């Protein structure tokens, strides 16, 4: 039932409403609303009950193992939420004068510094509100850099075919054209194809390393050389740093600009779709172009250190603002708190145990006879199973496997991404899962393969134990019903 269907005309959540004021005069009639908006009219109890029950219809990290590749569904410590929601932060107006906002600014400055150290970049801006906006900022800076040098011909961005969809979409949004670079069967970028692709039109290359295929790009130094020699810049899609934190730094690999999804590696919650943060870091030469705001620390003779926002006059070459205020401070605070929990030792351990868990599951998958997309390599924080054999032999799809997993109490891995691998499951366990969860998942996968052989209809009809059975997506797109207008 929809919340609208609990509605009764005239019912109100009285304790929440200021007492009715006479509508002030002075507003011309034609600027006023004629009819009340048809929002639901429910009591507070009805709303609480409805949304509490709705929440129970979700899978989530707090309730299920959620090995969704490229998404890093790790534990979101509750303390990060509690502490980020202290009244001193929640009640802070974004335009509060810096002197009254020192506690928050100190956190932001520290966060910038820790991100620089963790990635080997010279400076960070926390402005981007998600990975895609971080990419936007990064690519826009690449554009601004070339322009600032009068190098206006560089209108092409190179993107490997395994890349996340946001990479090409971003490049286009920034006004570039996109050229795809193929990937070899072993998961490395096709270096020859890359060499042929670069030229005076090359603005840069967007790369994820480890790639979305779950392997480390072994030729990274050669790639960096090719791009830099062609006059391009190297962009690191660091949506996911879980695989390398404390082990190798993008700056040391030769990247000029990077974004990092704090809502993945740094454990801010995904919230059913967002919000996130795509903090963006740069090498020294791109620093002037960083998006605003950026926080700086100043030694103030009177009261010791103090912090302030840099403005456009401090950074005249900045690509500008990406949001009305400061990105997503609540997300940034959660990431900051998480990083203080981890500290330098804890960060290395993230990479170590995320990698251990992925390699363990990959070994188990192999042992149990599943086909790996890329064999005989180390997994990074994730790895890929291809179910092409099962699809061929039993007429079941990766999607069927995914839906059946739901029935068994596991969230499905990422399916059909990266696009190169047929019938694939991209599996990312993260470091915060215990071995029992990994084993339980592999048992489930094995059980499903047996079912695929013996009772494939079980897979086709899955899920059976959830609030709804398989949903008709085609109908949803054909007979658009995007808002309730009464029954």
């Amino acid at each position, binding site marked *: 039932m929809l919340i609208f269907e609990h509605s009764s005309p005239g019912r109100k*959540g009285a304790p929440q409403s*200021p*007492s009715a*004021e006479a509508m*002030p005069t*002075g507003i*011309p009639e034609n600027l006023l*609303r004629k009819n009340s*908006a048809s*929002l*639901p009219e429910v009591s*507070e109890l009805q709303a609480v009950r409805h949304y509490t029950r*709705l929440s129970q219809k*979700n*899978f989530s990290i*707090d309730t299920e193992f959620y090995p969704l590749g490229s998404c890093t*569904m790790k534990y*979101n410590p509750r303390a990060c*939420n509690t502490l980020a929601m202290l*009244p001193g932060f929640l009640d*802070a*107006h*974004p*335009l509060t004068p810096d002197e*009254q*906002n020192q506690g928050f600014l100190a956190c932001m400055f520290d966060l910038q510094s820790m991100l620089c150290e963790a990635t080997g970049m010279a400076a960070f801006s926390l402005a981007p*509100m*998600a990975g*895609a*906006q971080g990419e936007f900022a990064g690519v*826009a800076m690449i554009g601004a850099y070339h322009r600032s040098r009068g190098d206006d011909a560089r209108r092409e961005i190179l993107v490997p075919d395994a890349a996340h*969809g946001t990479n090409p*979409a971003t490049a286009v949004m920034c006004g570039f054209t996109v050229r795809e670079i193929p990937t070899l069967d072993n998961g490395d970028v096709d270096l020859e194809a890359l060499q042929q692709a670069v030229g005076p039109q090359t603005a840069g290359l967007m790369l994820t390393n480890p790639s979305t295929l779950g392997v480390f790009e072994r030729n990274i130094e050669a790639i960096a050389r090719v791009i830099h020699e062609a006059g391009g810049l190297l962009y690191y899609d660091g949506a996911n740093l879980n695989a390398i934190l404390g082990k190798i730094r993008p700056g040391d690999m030769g990247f000029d600009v990077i974004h990092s999804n704090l*809502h993945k590696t740094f454990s801010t919650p*995904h919230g*059913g*779709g*967002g*919000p*996130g943060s795509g903090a963006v870091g740069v090498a020294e030469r791109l620093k002037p172009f960083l998006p605003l705001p950026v926080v700086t620390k100043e030694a103030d003779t009177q009261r010791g250190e103090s912090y302030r926002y840099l403005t456009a006059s401090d950074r005249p070459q900045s690509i500008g603002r*990406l949001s*009305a*205020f400061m990105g997503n401070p*609540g997300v940034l605070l959660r990431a900051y708190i998480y990083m203080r*929990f*981890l*500290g330098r030792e*804890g960060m290395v*351990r993230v990479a170590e145990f995320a*990698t251990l868990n992925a390699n363990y599951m990959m070994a*188990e998958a192999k042992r149990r006879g599943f086909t790996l997309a890329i064999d005989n390599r180390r997994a990074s924080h994730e790895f890929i199973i291809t179910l092409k054999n099962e699809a061929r032999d039993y007429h079941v799809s990766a999607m069927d496997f995914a839906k059946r997993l*739901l029935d068994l109490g596991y*969230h*499905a891995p990422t399916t059909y991404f990266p696009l190169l691998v047929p019938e694939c499951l991209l599996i990312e366990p993260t*470091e915060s899962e215990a*071995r029992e969860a990994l084993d339980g998942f592999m048992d489930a996968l094995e059980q499903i393969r047996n079912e695929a052989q013996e009772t494939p209809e079980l897979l086709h009809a899955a*899920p059976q134990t959830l609030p709804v059975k398989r949903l008709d997506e085609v109908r949803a797109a054909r007979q*658009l019903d*995007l808002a*309730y207008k009464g029954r």
Partner: protein
Amino acid sequence: MPFIPHTGQEITQMLDTIGADSIDDLFDEIPEHLRAAVMEAIPQGMNEMEVSRLMHQRAGLNTRALCFLGAGSYQHHIPAAVWEITTRGEFYSAYTPYQAEASQGTLQLTYEYQSMMTALTAMDVSNASMYDGASSLAEAILMSVRANRKSKSRKILIPTTVNPVYRQTAHTIVNGQQIELLDVPYDETTGTVKLEQIKQQCEGDITALVLQQPNFFGCLEAVDEITDWAHENNILVIAVINPLAAAILKPPGEWGAEEHGGADIACGDGQPLGAPMSAGGPYYGLLCCKQAYVRQMPGRIVGRTVDLDGKEGFVLTLQAREQHIRRSKATSNICTNQGLVVTASTIHMAIMGATGLENTAAACLANNNKLVECLTAIDGVEKSFDAAHFHETVLRLKKPAAEVLKGLIQKGILGGYDLSLDYPELGNALLVCTTEMRSQDDINAYVEAMKEVMTRSDSDLGLVQDTVLC
């Protein structure tokens, strides 16, 4: 080891299964000389007790003054139930609802959000959110360029009464795509845009016109007249709204003559509907449009459908617009949105209902009238504009606003937004805001403080500069 459950024995067994001697072996594809050193600049880890102490200290450093500052972020009452439910693990720690059957909670809620937002704006379609109001305006502009097939110019008219940071953000984001943003000046007595001024600015083919209601000065624009003119000239109208004000003001879907169907696209920041000010976010960008433009919409959209048994259910739909399907041809690069804030906002709207929002909006307005009446009774304080307004008003002061604000903050009052940088032509101008949260006592405190600041000589101001604030 923080948040890592592995015991020594488990590690050994797992390495055995893998066939590796140590965890470090798992990184042997990384060239040795590239390995990172210890990250000295990052402090050592802390336990929760220590982190908690640190964050309480930091939060305590933030001064909590009485807030009369608005300018795009507003302190409203939020029912306690809203965030208690929103932060339930099942909403908080879920991913984007790609596995629909295991995400009906988030999906149905988002459908309800879309329904509420279209009801509030009187628009046909709402998406599931953009990042914030400013970036939402930028996407609305990009969308208008795709949607207005009759226009080739890629020229957009933006009055300077639109929030300056929204205009800056729009510039950053549309910059790469050869789109021209043309400023339209405002009328100095009303604080609103006059149709004549728009016409003057408008040479030939224009793709879209942006109109903010209430505008950045808190003043109400002549939305009907301007919308009609735009439509008559094949110009799309992009409304920028405060969704709380929309509870009492004519919604964008009803701007202008009925036969034109109102504004074409509506955007704005959802913050006044359930998001705390929180130093600037997370908020969310609302984005609505006419049915005809739904395929040009960026971002996620949830649709209602049925399952195998014909039972109602919800899915992400029209995904062919999005980057993960269409890649370089997507309507936008947006992927992660502001889902959790939308969750809060949906619960907020459900609990408040239309009546609650209307009463809140009316209380904001009434409070602003009270405050402005008292302030303008003070010598050296007068209203800048005479147009009708919502809950913000521009005041002209006899002293520089920055100086006045310094004086006020020393009395624990966040007195408003200094307009002198963005609008130097207005002189010593201050934008003051009141929400329903400002009680009569609060208003009195502001008025008393302002009296003192306005009568004090400049040297007095300097003297007390370092007093401890409340």
